[in-house]
């Protein structure tokens, strides 16, 4: 391929990867640790699953270094379901990402839930043909990840806590900053790019379109249909549910309820009926009670 064709190919690839995230919108992406859980998630209406060895609540409880999952375990999940399968690699660990690409993963989550491998650099995600989703607490983080090649963004709500406060904080902050950039005069955008520490052309995109250039999901601490509705009403385009499902009393029923809540997030009557008799929600830990703050990883 000539250099021109290569650039063209890379741009097309990025469009296709952003496109897959668009197809996931209005859906629920569920954390699963076994093929059986993956099947339960698919049957309940998950639009994708995140394959990982331990769900965030257990990672938090176990402590220690948390790494990419065993490829054999991920393959088992790929074989069990027909929906897209995602997997996590450590922040900055491009070799883990290369391995995930080699096993034909549908999306890589360069995730703060695992122990970071690099405290300075994120993965140069433009080098990959598979898409990446990354967490972001605000517009600056989101646009930095997009500049590196992320094709999808999610909030960085504190995983494994069942506490939605941080996802809410991140979504509100993002919306406020997008509104602010949108309201600026064009000659003020250079200064905005400087303050946000992001490329000027991405600030221009946000200014012109009043949104991020990629799909934005909510993640972290979502445990109930009401949590999912809250995040959708705040502007999330879909939700990730991690520990909230398989740490609850009746995972299949709760999963189904959250799927319906995301579709009809503005219909309080339907939300009331799907929220009935779901059994025990995950226990949860309050933000102020936790020791390890994962959202501060990778800025």
């Amino acid at each position, binding site marked *: 391929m000539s250099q021109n064709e290569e650039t063209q190919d890379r741009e097309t690839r990025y469009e*296709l990867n952003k496109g897959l995230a668009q*197809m996931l*919108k209005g859906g629920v992406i569920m954390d699963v640790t076994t093929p059986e859980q993956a099947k339960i998630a698919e049957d309940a*209406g998950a*639009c994708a699953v995140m394959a990982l060895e331990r769900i965030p609540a257990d990672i938090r409880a176990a402590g220690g270094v948390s790494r990419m999952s065993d490829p054999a375990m991920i393959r088992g999940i790929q074989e069990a379901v027909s*929906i897209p399968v995602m997997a996590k690699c450590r922040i900055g660990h491009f070799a883990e990402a290369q391995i995930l690409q080699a096993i*034909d993963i*549908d999306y890589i989550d360069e995730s703060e839930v695992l122990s970071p491998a690099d405290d300075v650099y994120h993965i140069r995600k433009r080098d990959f043909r598979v898409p990446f989703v990354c967490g972001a607490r605000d517009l600056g983080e989101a646009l930095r990840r997009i500049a590196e090649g992320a094709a999808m963004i999610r909030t960085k709500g504190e995983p494994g806590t069942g506490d939605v406060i941080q996802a809410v904080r991140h979504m509100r902050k993002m919306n406020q900053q997008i509104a602010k950039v949108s309201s600026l005069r064009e000659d003020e955008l250079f200064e905005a790019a400087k303050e946000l520490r992001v490329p000027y052309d991405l600030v221009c995109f946000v200014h012109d379109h009043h949104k991020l250039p990629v799909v934005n999901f909510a993640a972290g601490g979502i445990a109930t249909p009401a949590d999912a509705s809250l995040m959708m009403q705040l502007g999330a385009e879909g939700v990730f549910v991690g520990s909230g499902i398989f740490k609850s009393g009746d995972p299949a029923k709760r999963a189904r309820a959250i799927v319906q809540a995301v579709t*009809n997030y503005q219909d309080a009557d339907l939300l009331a009926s799907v929220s009935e008799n779901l059994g025990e929600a995950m226990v949860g830990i309050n933000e102020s009670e936790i020791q390890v703050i994962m959202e501060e990883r990778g800025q």
Partner: protein
Amino acid sequence: MNSLKIGVLAVQGAFIEHEQMIRRLGCSCVELRKASDLAALDGLILPGGESTVQGKLLKELGMLEPLKQQIQDGLPTLATCAGLILLAEKIENDDAVYFGTLPVTVRRNAYGRQLGSHRIVSDFKGIGPVSMTFIRAPYIEKADPPVDILSREGNFITGVRYQNQIAIAFHPELQEDPRIHALFLSLAKEHASHSAQE
């Protein structure tokens, strides 16, 4: 065309992109999320997304049977990607059948996982060369007359029309070219003027 009201299935997937395209062409849209949304439509769009999720929600929300009836009664329908799977009479690698109103056999995830997603330029019957975006796409393995084949990629069928249903494996809503949506709206317009005469 301004008075046309197009229903866009909005239970999951890339429905907003279709709505933007329809509005650009001067028509109005209504999002279909529950059975009570289904009244008085001039056309129906089944968007891309995950067919398993959409099919399940269609059933749970009581929309499958009433929409199927409307499609069978001649409601002009445009289906893309997951929408094609919902319409198909038979899915080669899956036991599920959803609307089953389109007499074709489709294969889900026919090009494999995300690394098999691709874009090509190919001919679309009655339109000419069209840029086509395939994302974890199905293709049609078998379509016999009177199903009209609109587009192919090699040996695979990627677009068909059968009576009031246009079904394609790719995503015109992700690109700027509005010609396929315009073709669909011309069916909807024709259908609306027929209904008005009756």
